[in-house]
């Protein structure tokens, strides 16, 4: 049995920040990362981040990942276990892991769940054809491994992910034939939309996928226009060729582990689905279990990092590791989180967080 003060499940932006904060407060931390290296989805982000300098605004995601990884490797209180998937969480606090093909048990005194999210899927005819990929898969192929996902893409979803990945596809030399979204308005930041629009890519709102075509691989797609009630407009179908149909219709929090130990959950569509209820300190209904990042509700990576810091600091504090600046740091992080969610684009998140509040 491996013992530690704090177990951090997931080495993405939230998990890395949680580990750094808990370790700086004096706790011994182990980070469990299922991939071969830390960074999560940050390593695939080639665009500059929004927010303020405290959340590394203007820096690109993969550069932020490097900064955090360096901080972790220099911190003596942090042990990183890669190729380590937490496969179970038990009532007595024990975590079971698959590490380098071996089954191991871990007993932490506190746990930060930062498992991230998985991609939502979309129902339409032939949606299982090869060449129909989640946006994350497209990012992984082209930005991590340098492989083009196709030669011409139709992007489904004009939220931030759909817009950003479309731009990244063009940077990789792939033609984007259109970005479509069933909603009547572009969901992502409008500056991202303008960036791809001025490169000549049409953005078609009130448009959805009807059928994908192809036998062994996708070859094209029939799209259809929607009216203001999201109903298909008769005879408005049209065809676009593509060898990659990219699905960017949102993410769902990865919460299986928290379900396993009976943590109180709430269904909050604004946050992507079922999320654990938590208080301001990112503490769940199990006082020794904290949550951060997309696992607590899908948001931007900037907020995930701030949530990670809050969760890590509080997990340490919960175990009695408290330094003279713990409270002032917390106050700063709370303010950063509020500020990131304060504007009109944060409205949905604010409403969602209210529904996920732990009484």
């Amino acid at each position: 049995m491996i013992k530690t003060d704090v177990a951090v499940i997931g080495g993405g932006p939230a998990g890395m920040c949680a580990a750094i904060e808990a370790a700086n407060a004096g706790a011994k931390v182990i980070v469990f990362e299922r991939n071969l290296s830390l960074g999560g989805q940050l390593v695939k982000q080639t665009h500059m981040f929004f927010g303020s300098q405290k959340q590394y605004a203007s820096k690109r995601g993969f550069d932020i990942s490097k900064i955090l990884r360096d901080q972790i490797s220099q911190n003596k209180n942090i042990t990183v276990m890669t190729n380590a998937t937490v496969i179970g969480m038990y009532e007595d606090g024990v975590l079971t892991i698959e590490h380098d093909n071996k089954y191991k048990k871990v007993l932490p005194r506190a746990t930060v769940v930062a498992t991230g999210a998985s991609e939502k899927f979309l129902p339409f005819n032939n949606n299982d054809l090869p060449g129909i990929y989640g946006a994350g898969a497209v990012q992984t192929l082209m930005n991590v491994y340098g492989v083009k996902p196709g030669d011409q893409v139709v992007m489904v979803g004009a939220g931030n992910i759909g817009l950003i990945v479309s731009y990244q596809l063009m940077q990789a030399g792939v033609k984007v034939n259109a970005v479509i979204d069933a909603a009547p308005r572009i969901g992502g930041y409008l500056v991202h939309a303008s960036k791809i629009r001025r490169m000549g890519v049409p953005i078609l709102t009130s448009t959805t996928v009807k059928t994908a075509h192809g036998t062994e691989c996708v070859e094209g797609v029939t799209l259809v226009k929607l009216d203001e009630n999201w109903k298909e407009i008769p005879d408005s179908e049209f065809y676009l060729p593509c060898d990659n149909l990219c699905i960017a219709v949102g993410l769902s929090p990865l919460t299986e582990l928290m379900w396993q130990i009976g943590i109180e959950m709430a269904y909050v569509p604004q946050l992507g689905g079922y999320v654990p209820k938590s208080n301001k300190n990112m503490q769940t209904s199990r006082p020794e279990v904290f949550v951060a990042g997309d696992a607590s509700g899908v948001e931007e990576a900037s907020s995930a990092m701030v949530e990670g810091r809050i969760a890590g600091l509080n997990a340490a504090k919960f175990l009695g590791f408290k330094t003279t600046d713990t409270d002032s740091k917390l106050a700063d992080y709370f303010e950063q989180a509020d500020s990131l969610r304060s504007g009109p684009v944060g409205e949905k998140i604010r409403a969602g967080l209210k529904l996920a509040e732990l009484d």
Partner: protein
Amino acid sequence: MLEKTGIATVEQIESVTPSAERRGKGAIAVCECFQNIPCNPCYTSCKFNAMKPLIDINDRPEVNPDKCTGCGICISNCPGLAIFVIDETYSETEALVKLPYEFLPLPEDGTFVTGTDRAGKAVCRAKVVKVLNTPAQDKTPVVWLAVPKELSMTVRCFKIDDIYSDNTYLCRCEEVTLGEIRELIRKGYTSVDEIKRISRAGMGPCQGKTCRQLIMNEISKMTGEKIQDMPVSTFRPPVKPIKLGMLAQSEDNDDE
């Protein structure tokens, strides 16, 4: 409508267009950021305090026209790539538009590209005056385009494909492009001799045999003047390149 298409409306663009008076004074940043999002690098990156302080991080940027020098540092720092610098004092007929461009290939200084608008539609030919791509731009290169002055608030991107064939060589000997010839004609150099003297087109070893007719065609196209009405260039010997030594050793020096 921006929320439906990604293209800002005329009203939105008007709301961020600097006054004609300010435009007449030199370079200035234009922030085409029309949504309240939590983001502030435009403000924190400005060394001249020319971005009005963002009281709330969701505030939209506002350029102080008296303080902005048009230096363009904010262009590469804006995560939304929504800041451009325009300079209408570049020349009598042209404005400079400085824009972020994160794609390959990057254009080369002095070449011609197709200027495009906010919808990616071709609107003019544009000369690449400079491509800034140093560590300071941190992989967001800034491309300076010379465009017709009236399009300073229209051109926001470009296509490398040169639909106007501006990068075509007219004078092979001296490597002068059609775009450069057209630029001279626009500036008022409308005879073959004028163009030859200022650009060297026609001064190479072929003595204008290849380019002269093409230049005349282009002058005619742009000015409407018929070729038969144009002054022909001055023809002087030798009609082919010769060795100076041959002249010096001439057996026929009977001038005296």
